[in-house]
């Protein structure tokens, strides 16, 4: 009898099964709706108002916040610095971990685990806390980098207050902090290359650079592109706390970027309407990247078949 009418799936079951499933995913969905999706709508709504975040006075201004952003040289500077930073992130958050992952394929698995464990360590340290030692490294007088350069008779720049050096200095901290994670993901992607293909190539006598160029890289290209977009999406988020701890967006906006500007305009300058408009532009930029990423993902699954 049990087998004919098993518990959990009663006769008139479809509707009840749906209801049971909804009980299981419903609470999680409720939280996502309340704290992610509703805020998205709310942000778009706030962006159409002029508001200082505290007062009850909140006049409707239509697209004025967007218009003033697009005509604002400060905002143009923020966009330019974002682009510059993303360029640096491409080197540090994508090419560097990818290169290290390729090197790791040369060594044994046991040995690779040691490098993984060591490189991953900064990932478990709080960014805000881990960044503090860099304040000391970058100290203009008596800091580690300054003293080290002085040993060779070189004069260190003002790492954090020179507009030319501030961005790379802040970017370096983000690279340090997230290298292990990006490296782990890159390595996993490389190792997901079908073993049979590699073995066939080896039997055919391929090895070293030819194997890398003719087999590994082409097979890895789709995952690499996927990694690239992920790195781009994570870049601005990764550097957020280093900026907050080291430079607060300065000097003269040199380390500001679109994501940090949203936070600063809202919670430091109380320009809620402007911050919300920036947030909407940020989401739009992300959406473009994500659509691109989904395209890549589809192509990658097509490769698998």
């Amino acid at each position, binding site marked *: 009898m*049990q087998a004919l009418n098993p*518990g*959990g*799936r009663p006769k008139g079951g479809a509707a009840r*099964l749906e209801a*049971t499933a*909804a*009980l*299981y*995913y419903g*609470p*999680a*969905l409720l*939280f996502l709706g309340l*704290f*992610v999706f509703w*805020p*998205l709508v*709310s942000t778009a709504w*706030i962006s159409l108002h002029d508001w200082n975040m505290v007062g009850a006075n909140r006049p409707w201004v239509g697209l004025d916040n967007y218009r003033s952003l697009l005509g604002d040289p400060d905002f143009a500077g923020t966009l330019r610095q974002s682009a510059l930073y993303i360029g640096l992130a491409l080197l540090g958050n994508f090419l560097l971990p990818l290169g290290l992952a390729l090197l790791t394929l*040369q*060594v*044994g*698995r046991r*040995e*690779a*685990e040691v*490098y993984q*464990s060591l490189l991953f*360590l*900064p990932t*478990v*340290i*709080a960014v*805000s806390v*881990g960044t*503090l*030692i*860099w*304040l*000391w490294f970058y100290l203009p007088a*008596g800091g*580690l980098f300054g003293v080290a350069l002085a040993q060779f008779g070189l004069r260190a720049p003002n790492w954090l207050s020179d507009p030319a050096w501030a961005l790379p200095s802040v970017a370096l901290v983000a690279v340090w902090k997230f*290298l292990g994670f990006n490296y*782990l*993901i890159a390595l*996993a992607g490389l*190792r997901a290359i079908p*073993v049979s293909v*590699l*073995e066939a190539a080896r039997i055919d006598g391929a090895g*070293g650079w030819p194997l890398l160029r003719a087999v590994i890289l082409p097979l890895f290209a789709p995952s690499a592109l996927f990694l690239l977009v992920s790195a781009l999406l994570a870049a601005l988020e990764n550097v957020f*706390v280093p900026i907050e701890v080291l430079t607060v967006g300065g000097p003269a906006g040199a380390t500001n970027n679109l*994501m940090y500007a949203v*936070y600063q305009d*809202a919670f430091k300058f109380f320009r*809620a309407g402007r911050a919300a408009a920036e*947030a909407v532009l*940020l989401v739009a930029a*992300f959406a473009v990247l994500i659509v691109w990423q989904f395209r890549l993902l589809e192509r990658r699954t097509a490769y698998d078949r």
Partner: protein
Amino acid sequence: MTVNPVAVDVDPVKVDLGTPSSAVGIAGGHPLVTLRSRRRPRPFRWTLWAARILLLISAGLVLVPVVYQFGLSVKPSAGLFSAPLSPLTWPPTAEHYAQVLEGLPLWRYTLNSLVFALGVTVGQLLLAVPAAYALSHLRPRWGPAVFGAVLISLMVPFVVTYLPNYLLLARWGLLNTLPGLILPMLTAGYAIFLLRQHFLSFPREIIEAALVDGATTGQRLWRVLLPAHRAPVAALAVYLFISTWNQFVWPQLVAGRSESLTLTVAVQRFASGEGGNAWGPLMAAATLATLPTVLLYFFMRRALLDTFSEGAVKG
């Protein structure tokens, strides 16, 4: 007799393939590794040694800030600027730790961080385990749409949600409270995504066998699926704990002015205030704030790294 050398030659290969628990998940052992494991003398390979040296240098460079952070925390104040290049000095001093433990209510902050991190970890698991189960094995009609929402939620930049969430908490009177800190962090998108990946790879036949045995929906999750996924769930819990413990921007906004200050925010406050030039005490505070996550990492290293790698590939 002639067979023996062959057997000796092959065995290490088999052992090498079998040992790493993750290897099966990531498309089997890597041939570049396994083929080399034969016990036959190999010629010196410069690519291997170049790779080894570059990797060692990178690992060393990554550890430099960690070493200096600890080094400064046990360095007598007098020697700080006289020999800034040497990370460690002998004998070490505990004066900075004593000073920090006396001057700051660190226990209070640690307790706050603990409640915050545990609250978010437990809350997210309670939400994500049933949701991942529903999306992987119950196959509801709206499942794809719900999973789509989960994926989209992962891609919303955190900073976009801060302003509305802050306003919402203000309206509910939850600013500067631990519940206010925890609730908006209970968006379990990543947890659902990761667990669903793992649940999907669990053989359907076993679940169906349990169904035939009369197990209810809940029993199939609780008695069949969960016991088989102890490792990824534990790794996820550790990941959630560490990343919540390390949160900075949100706790600073919501609990910045109160008794609900978390350890990371408190250390940062100390740095931008009284501790700004007191590098010894500051680094002692930083080391104390780092210790719990680093210890957790050392004990759970293997499970964490495996779970991340697999989630990344299957994703």
